[in-house]
């Protein structure tokens, strides 16, 4: 990268985004790690760039971890990126930035899930939210997908988180275990249990 680098108080270096912008450097040249480091020193433009890059993945993850309405999903995604902003200095460089984001998102959803569990239990009889009109929805509406969605809703949140991170977001097991604070064996056990439960639900409903 051609931009001048600045030393950080805590060590390391960060690329000044605004200077890059002035030089009309393409945003794609800046790595996720550099953006996260820039977040750590208070550059909100870096957070915007990180959001632009990863918001879809975070939306997808949050939606699958907690099937809820769009507004709540928006709130959770926003909270996730705010946590990223606050935790950017704590990024150790182990694992990808995407894993870092996913870990924060998973924790955010877990806290939210726990805090709203009582309310959810109270309104358990409420109808489930209808799926929104995504463009590819027609192709998605197969019976198996519906069964899987229903089974996923019934799955305990811990198992669901592991399944979504590993199988749907393709996060390596080692990284998933680290961002969730689990031992490898625990993660693989949960993943196995989740898969078995989902498989039984699908085959039983077919």
């Amino acid at each position: 990268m051609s931009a001048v680098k600045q030393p950080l108080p805590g060590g390391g270096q960060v690329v000044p985004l605004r200077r890059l912008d002035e030089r009309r450097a393409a945003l794609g040249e800046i790595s996720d790690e550099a953006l996260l480091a820039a977040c750590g020193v208070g550059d909100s433009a870096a957070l915007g760039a990180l959001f632009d890059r990863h918001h879809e993945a975070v939306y997808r993850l949050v939606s699958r971890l907690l099937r809820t309405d769009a507004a709540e999903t928006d709130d959770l995604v926003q909270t996730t990126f705010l946590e990223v902003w606050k935790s950017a200095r704590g990024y150790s460089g182990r694992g990808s930035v995407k894993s870092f984001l996913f870990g924060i998102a998973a924790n955010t959803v877990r806290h939210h899930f726990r805090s709203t569990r009582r309310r959810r239990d109270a309104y358990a009889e409420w109808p489930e939210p209808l799926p929104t009109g995504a463009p590819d929805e027609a192709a998605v509406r197969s019976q198996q997908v519906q069964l899987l969605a229903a089974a996923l809703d019934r799955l305990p949140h811990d198992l669901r988180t592991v399944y979504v991170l590993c199988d749907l977001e393709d996060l390596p097991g080692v990284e998933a275990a680290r961002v969730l604070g689990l031992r490898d064996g625990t993660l693989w056990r949960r993943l196995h249990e989740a898969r078995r439960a989902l498989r039984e639900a699908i085959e039983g409903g077919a």
Partner: protein
Amino acid sequence: MSDDDQATTGPDNLSALGKQLPWHRPDAERREAVRSSLLVAVSEGAAQPRRRPWALVGAGFAAGALAAAAIVLVVVRPHAPASVAAPQIAYAQIEASSAAELEHTRTPTPTGTDETVRIRSGKIRLAVPSVRAGDRVRVQTSDASVEGTGSYEVVVAHDALTSVTVSAGTASVTVKGQAPAVFLAAGETWHAPVITADVDLPLAPSDPPPPEVVPAPPVVVPPPVVAPAPARHAAVLPPRVAISAPPVEVSAPTTPSPALAEPAITAPHAAVTAPAEAATAPAIATTEAPRTAPPAGPTATERHFQAGTALLRAGKAADAAIELQAAADSGSDPLAVDARYFQAVALAKAGHHPQAETALVAFLDHAPTSIRRGRAAVMLARLMLARGDRTSARAWFQAAAADADPSVAAAGRAGLASLSR
């Protein structure tokens, strides 16, 4: 991994199936709303996102009411006139886009306080509770003021009020020199008329038109209309503002960038393309006199821009080009960028086509999200075509054909058709 996982619905199949699960894919507006809200929260140093402004307002006023009740109970002054102190905090809760330029001030007046949000550009959303008698809360631009209670959204471009959308409560819009005020109820939107349409021409009249080029469609200047807002605005105070953040990517100078193909529409276009039923919505006029505050003095950019557009309207294209160039060179704000566009229009009108081409390239280079990119692309393509550069002209016509503005897209397609003949 156990043998169970290798059954008919093995992990790979299960994974493939799971990836088809629907999810809340955010549309562009939601995405921008979250992004803007996020950046506002970060810039304000907020620990948590401002997701429940009404809750905050309600809690604040509940606390205030309790405090006032306690004071009344403790301090008994039967002979003294009851005087209610002005609130120590501002009434208006403001959510602003990251690109918004505004000042929020509170000025004591003989009757109470005058709380003014002076905005020059950008989009803001205000939540204003009922104000004490004698107090005022208003949004001020150089050409208009908006005053209301509830929740409303104000869009301002180049220090001119562009649109007002009321989500809850009511608001009045007072445009200078256009009494009476227009009152808006929840769900209604006011759009400003397009005032630059008469200079927004693709080519100078004296310029020989390129072969088989379809003339630009006429732009009609509509009167201000009050349109019903979409249903989603009817909810009480949607928590975020939706506006694009400042672009960080700059296009190459002579080739169309992807940004050109993206819709970059702001409120002036919305006024032109407002749905037909919008014009039939009732606008309740009153005889209330306009109440405006003295505007801040214009900047050098504003002075040159206003002089340039006035000259352009008067038909003095060459002089207009000089003023607009001065405006374009005097800063890098959106007005200066727009000035570059109008400089190109003026140069084209004056017959200085090479300079107009240069100005257009400069404009396109510096305005990746401007609403005028499409028109600039058509104009540039026609200039290129006129001097025989069909390859470059085709690229710009193609870019324009993907523009969100139907008239621009039609002009782009017409240009491509003329090239293929």
